[in-house]
């Protein structure tokens, strides 16, 4: 199903138009749900070797997003609306995203990209898009001073309607790169 959708999307007339943010957002908005596998590598100052993690992501429009880490330790972060659910070592905590605006901004960046909500994207970030439909890069710079104190930039790379990687650079020099491998029922990733 998903592949068919993607196939339909790629034969869409919008492709003929020039590639801009509106086009990308429109394209992303057509995708209503998705599942992916991720691997993450974090480079942290003071820690000699990179920290790695892997797990599964899932998304359902308009406002559900789950990141389930399987390695090296199991934990789940689930966003539903403005509520964040954290599960670690059998303990569950729920919190309101708006109480931690920096966190809310990061999650909004992800949500806005996945749902094609450019207004939400512009609320927290200065946005620049490069590349073409086959390989695009969305660079987000924090517009808010408080967020800028923590986050230097976010770079999202995608192919068509698929998000393929998220790179987060923190102001202290730490950074993380998440590679995303879309999963679909018809074509399970190896």
């Amino acid at each position, binding site marked *: 199903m998903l592949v068919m959708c993607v196939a339909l999307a790629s034969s869409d007339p919008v492709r003929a138009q020039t590639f801009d943010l509106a086009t990308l957002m429109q394209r992303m908005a057509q995708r209503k749900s998705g599942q992916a596998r991720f691997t993450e590598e974090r480079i942290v100052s003071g820690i*000699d070797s990179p920290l790695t993690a892997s797990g599964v992501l899932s998304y359902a429009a308009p406002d559900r997003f789950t990141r389930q880490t399987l390695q090296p330790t199991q934990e789940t972060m689930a966003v539903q609306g403005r509520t964040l659910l954290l599960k*670690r070592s059998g303990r569950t*905590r729920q919190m309101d995203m708006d109480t931690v605006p920096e966190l809310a901004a990061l999650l909004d960046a992800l949500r806005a990209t996945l749902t094609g909500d450019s207004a939400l994207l512009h609320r927290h970030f200065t946005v620049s898009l490069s590349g073409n439909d086959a390989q695009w890069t969305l660079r987000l710079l924090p517009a808010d001073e408080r967020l800028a104190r923590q986050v230097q930039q976010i770079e999202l790379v995608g192919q068509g309607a698929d998000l393929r990687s998220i790179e987060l650079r923190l102001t202290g020099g*730490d950074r993380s790169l998440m590679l995303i491998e879309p999963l679909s029922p018809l074509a399970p990733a190896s």
Partner: protein
Amino acid sequence: MMNEPATRRWPQRAWPLALWAALLLLALLQIVRTPFTADLSAFLPASPDARQRLLIEQIHSGLPSRTLLMGISGGDGAARADASRALARALRDSGRFEQVNNGDAAGWAGFGQWLVDHRYALSPAVNAEHFSADGLRQAIAESLSLLGTPAGNAIKPLLDRDPSGEMQRIAESMIPAQSPRSVDGVWASRPKEGQPERALLMATIRAIGADIDAQAAAIAGVRQAFAPLAARGLTLQISGAPVFSVDSRSRIESEVRWLAIVGGLMMATLLLLAFASVAALAVAALPVVTGVVTGIAAVALGFGSVHGMTLGFGSALIGESVDYAIYYLIQARRDEQGRGGWRHWLLESWPTVRLGLLTSVCGFGALVFSGFPGLAQLGVFSVAGLIGAALATRFVLPALMPDGARGRGLRAPLGRLARAALRGLPRLRLPVLLLGLVAAVLLWQRGDLWRADLASLSPVPRAAIALDEALRADLTSSDSGTLVVVQGADVQTTLQRAEAAAERLEALIEQGRIGGFDSVTRFVPSLATQERRRASLPDTVTLKAALQQATAGGPLPAERLAPFLADVAQARQAAPLTPADLQGSAVAPLIDALLLRRADGSASALLPLQPLPGKDIDSAAVQQALQGLPEVQLLGIGQELGALYQRYLGQAQQQALLGAAGVVLLMALWLRSGRRLLAVCQPLVLAVLLSLGALAALGLQLGILHLVGLLLVVAVGSNYALFFDMLREAGLGDEGRRDDSSDDTLASLLLANLTTVASFGLLAFSSIPVLSAIGVVVAPGALLALVLAATFAPRAKTALPL
């Protein structure tokens, strides 16, 4: 001064005057020594059960009673955030507040350090397994999983000291399910249609809730601290229980003042119209003053303090007690034949006045036994006041004006008016009876007549409540008003029981039944728990070995973790935390809020529950989860207050019935005739039915106070009915004088009724709900009682010349 019979000399007249003056002086002395209050204590039960005691403790000295909620609006987000920080700083520096919170992390710096220092006593993760090689490996992996994210920035500086993540565990247990939105680093309101955006602050006043002067000073301090910020175009709104009690007090104070002034003026005008004599006015004021002073002194003696509301009720007492003076001054008047005078009054009218007094006392007396201190005060005040006024009339007035008041004023037209009315009114008997029947049917069908709740007794205006709700919704949306209360004979027992309850509540969070909860045991675990945690900390050699094993091949080398070894070694030697030792520390306000310690050493721990967003607390599930734990109770503050009110209402209904029965019994004993009793009761029953019917038809939510009002209608109305009974008997017995005397009696009745209606009517316009509810019922009810008493007055066989 006045024309005096030779039989009565000065010494004879002097002794009642001297005694009266002496008693009045004593009463005044008592009043001067008594404090006046205006807090909400009048609304709480006098003899609470265990649950209610908790409720009262919460209302009197609990955190809510001392917490101010503040909103800053105007300007832009950044300006509001700056103002929030400036105001918070000023308030912290003032020293008046235990805790000032605006969401700014800076305010918690001391608290964070305290947590770090005591993390091995506080972390729920601490057990022997946690410090084994496997446990450490798992814990370190969890800590590292946050690095490289913004959240990691917070734990990175602590990594070498706390690789096992105790601080994360502590922080995690404190994440509220819902808390205020944060904008520009401080709390802010959620954007909502029609509401200005606000920066939000919360401050806990140091002084207890009952100390209204201190609360007023603290609130004034806040306004003063905000003044320079107001100049920048920002607006401050303050709410919370302290604001309510301070405002209520000043409202009650100003209300008492205007009620007294307007009430006094109204009485004076009526009396001047009736007597056209300043001397009569002065003399008529004496029983009133005596009544009010006696009433206040009696309340002072009985309750130790006098509530402002009771004083407000004083204006109603003025209207009641002036009646005695009116009866005396008119009825003791000497006619042209020289008949009358005080001796005549004592024989002819005093027994009826005395009976009227007794029935009134019966009515008000029912209130004395109310479990609701506010009403009990009104009862004592009225009973003592009426007795004082009647005795002053009986003993003092004859000494001063033995022949009543000479001036006639407007009494003749009043009497004529009354007589004309008396002639015409009986025609209304049938329509009134039918109306009464309709009212009875209407009331029978309306099951939900008594719908008012405890809030209807509160003197806080609706607009203030709306502001409070708006601020509260943005600020403490996690406050469900439901808490688990754990009790114990000493602090440690209480803490252990609270830990047992907290364990069950944790399970409810996992099951998604509740969002979260607070517990004092997060800051001060029981000694037993702290000891268990301390005992599970390994010695340095063992820990070092386990750490080597746990970090082998991992990204975090063991060599970096020397500070961790040092901290654990230190924690093994640390003295345990107790609530007493923490007095004055950064964590003290939190402990004081969640742990109530009493003088006898016993303690209660409060565990406020937070609902999941958009859901209510599932009380049944919580109740079931707590099953079997000793001294653990679930307390829903809203429900408890509701139950309390229902209890008051039930009690008040019984007392009102008893009071009414007492009135009837008294009249039966006096009249000794079923026919006369029936004639006297008929207008009373109809007056109550019609008043109640009118209130129901107007759609008013009836509460305890309306019930009290109805009781007073019976108590006051019985006086009128009895006078008509007396007139009828007099009409039979004393043919020769009936015209003049009955005219005057009618005039005095009408005048007495006017004063009552005027004084209760005045109360009806009070902004204090307790007073206005009584006034709204009694003013029309008393008028109705007089009219109906006249309508149903039995005609004498030889007939009054009606």
